[in-house]
């Protein structure tokens, strides 16, 4: 299997594409940061405070993410990793063990934060002319900023594991982390930060300045790190933030080591316990058995198996929480659009937004399909010995996977399109177009996700969240965006024709060209569906395990 994996992973295209995407992301992050800072820098009196505040807010947000990430990573590094049996039974002193595992935890939790921070701090360094030493100063600020949440997360995990078995602790931590992250995202959206940039939001300039000058909290490492960086950039000699960072971080490491020395052995021993899980009752059988009764037994049981496995995996619940938050934010964004603030309803603007919204809804569906449908074949990798040695037709497998993904996606797509159409007060014509388009797109996107998931499987991980983050997931999103773009372009013709009839005050006339354009969209979507599924099936038939 390793040999097959090497053959499958070969080729220079994949790392090149990943590098290009990474550079593109960095470029975009740098570009946005640079534009914002350059504007802020030109504002007399408040510019520096605003820049410092922005940096503080960014580091607070990243610090929160780091804390949550370290909590979960520490559980794996210290209690669930496969090398632990060997390490714990070997004559390895506790202190090097702790430092090595702490380093591993901080590294795995922080690499993405570091990658996000680099373009942002580069923009700060350029706009405020930080000089050649600025990268070193930034590194000296960021390193202790990364270590502190690592130590805190590790210590918290130590207490948690001494209270619960590690596997149950992992489930709890995972849900807590995702719930907290979801809550933060929702809260940030609901407080409407866009008002900060709106003149209507500034009632009193003095109050605004006072708010900018006040630190978020003087006890947060994010505040010390942002002060250290801004002091360098504004040529302020203040050693306090440096001292706070570089004394607190080592002190915390020492404290963490002491706690580890006292509590780790008992925690590790408890971690060897499995969480016993007893399941009785046939919930899914009862709920869906009647509906699925007409299907052949293999397809029926496959669907029931997928549903049971999905809903019993707490990692999937956390993904569902994130999905719910993203959908709420999306609908709230639509609701917050300032389309109806004037006396008259801007018909053409609303029509345009409704039209473009179907592309946005399509993108949301593509993102959901990437997360839940794309991994479907990969997740069967380890059990393929059972599926391929049985007389199961692979078509039945693909069929079950397809409908298990498509039906919920279809219900969701139609629900969000209907909801956003109501919020946007879409006309019946536009509502019909958007619902019909989303209906057809859902079949195509689900098939693309499944087919490309079979073309680019990842059998090396059981974590469904990791599977779409590779090259195949990227190819899927790019293909999905291309399909959405094509559909939008084709449908622009009937929508423009509709707008023209409304402009001259005529009733809507369905012309052959309109029908032709809409029929073309239907054909493209269903051709994509058929092609993607057939390609996926051919790939699966050629797979060896």
């Amino acid at each position, binding site marked *: 299997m390793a040999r097959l994996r090497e053959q499958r992973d070969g080729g220079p295209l994949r790392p090149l594409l990943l590098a290009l995407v990474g550079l593109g992301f960095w470029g975009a992050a740098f570009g946005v940061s640079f534009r914002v800072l350059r504007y802020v820098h030109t504002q007399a009196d408040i510019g520096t405070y605003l820049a410092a505040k922005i940096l503080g807010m960014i580091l607070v947000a990243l610090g929160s993410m780091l804390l949550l990430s370290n909590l979960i990573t520490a559980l794996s590094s210290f209690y669930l990793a496969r090398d632990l049996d060997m390490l714990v039974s070997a004559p390895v002193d506790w202190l090097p063990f702790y430092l090595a595992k702490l380093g591993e935890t901080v590294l795995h939790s922080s690499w993405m934060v570091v990658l996000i921070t680099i373009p942002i701090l580069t923009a700060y360094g350029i706009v405020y002319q930080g000089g050649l030493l600025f990268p070193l100063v930034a590194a000296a600020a960021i390193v202790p900023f990364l270590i502190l949440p690592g130590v805190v997360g590790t210590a918290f995990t130590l207490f948690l594991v001494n209270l619960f078995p590690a596997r149950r602790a992992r489930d709890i931590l995972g849900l807590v982390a995702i719930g907290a992250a979801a809550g933060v995202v929702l809260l940030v959206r609901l407080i409407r930060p866009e008002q900060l940039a709106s003149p209507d939001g500034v009632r009193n300039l003095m109050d605004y300045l006072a708010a900018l000058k006040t630190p978020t909290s003087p006890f947060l490492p994010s505040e010390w790190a942002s002060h250290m960086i801004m002091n360098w950039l504004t040529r302020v000699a203040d050693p306090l933030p440096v001292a706070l960072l570089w004394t607190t971080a080592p002190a915390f490491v020492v404290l963490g080591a002491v706690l580890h020395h006292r509590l780790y052995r008992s925690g590790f021993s408890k971690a060897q316990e499995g969480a016993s899980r007893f*399941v009785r009752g046939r919930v899914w059988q009862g709920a869906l058995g009647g509906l699925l009764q007409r299907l052949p037994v293999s397809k029926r049981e496959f669907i029931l198996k997928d549903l049971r*496995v999905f809903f019993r995996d707490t990692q999937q619940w956390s993904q569902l929480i994130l999905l719910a938050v993203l959908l709420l934010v999306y609908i709230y964004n639509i609701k917050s659009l300032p389309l109806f603030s004037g006396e008259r309803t801007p018909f053409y603007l609303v029509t345009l937004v409704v039209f473009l919204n179907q592309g946005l809804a399509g993108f949301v569906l593509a993102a959901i399909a990437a997360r839940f449908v794309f991994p479907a074949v990969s997740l069967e990798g380890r*059990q393929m010995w*059972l599926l*391929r040695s049985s007389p199961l037709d692979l078509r039945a497998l693909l069929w079950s996977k397809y409908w298990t993904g498509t039906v919920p996606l279809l219900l969701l797509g139609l629900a969000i399109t209907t909801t956003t159409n109501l919020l946007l007060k879409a006309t019946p014509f536009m509502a019909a177009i958007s619902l019909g388009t989303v209906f057809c797109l859902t079949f195509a996107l689900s098939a693309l996700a499944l087919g490309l998931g079979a073309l680019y499987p990842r059998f090396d991980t059981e974590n469904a969240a990791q599977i779409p983050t590779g090259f195949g997931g990227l190819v899927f999103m790019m293909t999905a965006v291309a399909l959405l773009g094509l559909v939008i372009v084709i449908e622009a013709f009937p929508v423009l024709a509709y707008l023209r009839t409304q402009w001259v005050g005529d009733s809507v006339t369905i012309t052959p060209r309109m029908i032709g354009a809409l029929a073309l969209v239907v054909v493209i979507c269903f051709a994509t569906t058929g092609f993607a599924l057939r390609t996926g099936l051919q790939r699966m038939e050629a797979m060896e395990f």
Partner: protein
Amino acid sequence: MIRLVNLTKRYGSFTAVDRVNLEIARGELFGFLGPNGAGKTTTLRIIAGILKPTEGTAEIAGDDVQRKPMEAKARLGFIPDRPYVYEKLTGGEFLRFVAALYGQEGAAIERRMDELLDLFELTEWKDDLVETYSHGMRQKLIISSALLHRPEVIVVDEPLVGLDPKGARFLKELFRAFVNKGGTVLMSTHTLEVAEAMCDRIAIIQNGKIVAAGTMAELQQQSNAGDASLEELFLKVTGGHPDRELEGILEQ
């Protein structure tokens, strides 16, 4: 019952299975032995329909596994060496799922499931998630799943790994009883004493080729080994480390 004709499997320039020819009759317990990396698992996985041969054919009761996979696989029960199962299913749900793969459901299969769970002492674990099972329990569950649809042929890779002595003894008796009732078992194992005691015939594979095949008496005759044990025969045929090399490595 099982017929391999010039079976070959290549991965690029590497030949894992090299023109293997074997015929295993109905009612035979056949041992398939070889050093690590010899091609045993690859051969068994081709017979089970998981891998495609580069050349040659594998047939189950006359049905080519590649040309008539449904017919061939319906007669087969496969037990791999490292079986992964759906950990989020209970033992009962897993067996029901496997039955469905063979198109079986209903009261008859529920009774069959209960019989097998009782036989392997897994009844009290029927409603527990597989992730809570020990390795031995998972092995027993897999064996139960292979017997669920009443196969004619069992292909098993390292059946005794992870089983306690009672379970291992029971499995040996089970295979013998299966074969006595007309079934066929093709078994790979590293435990040569077991193979010698259980198997009607044995084949030894090395570097993808069959280097010896037959009953114990025939193997002894082929290698002029007198009344040597299977272990001695195996080492003679496949080559082993001379004692002086081992002593050199172990010197402190």
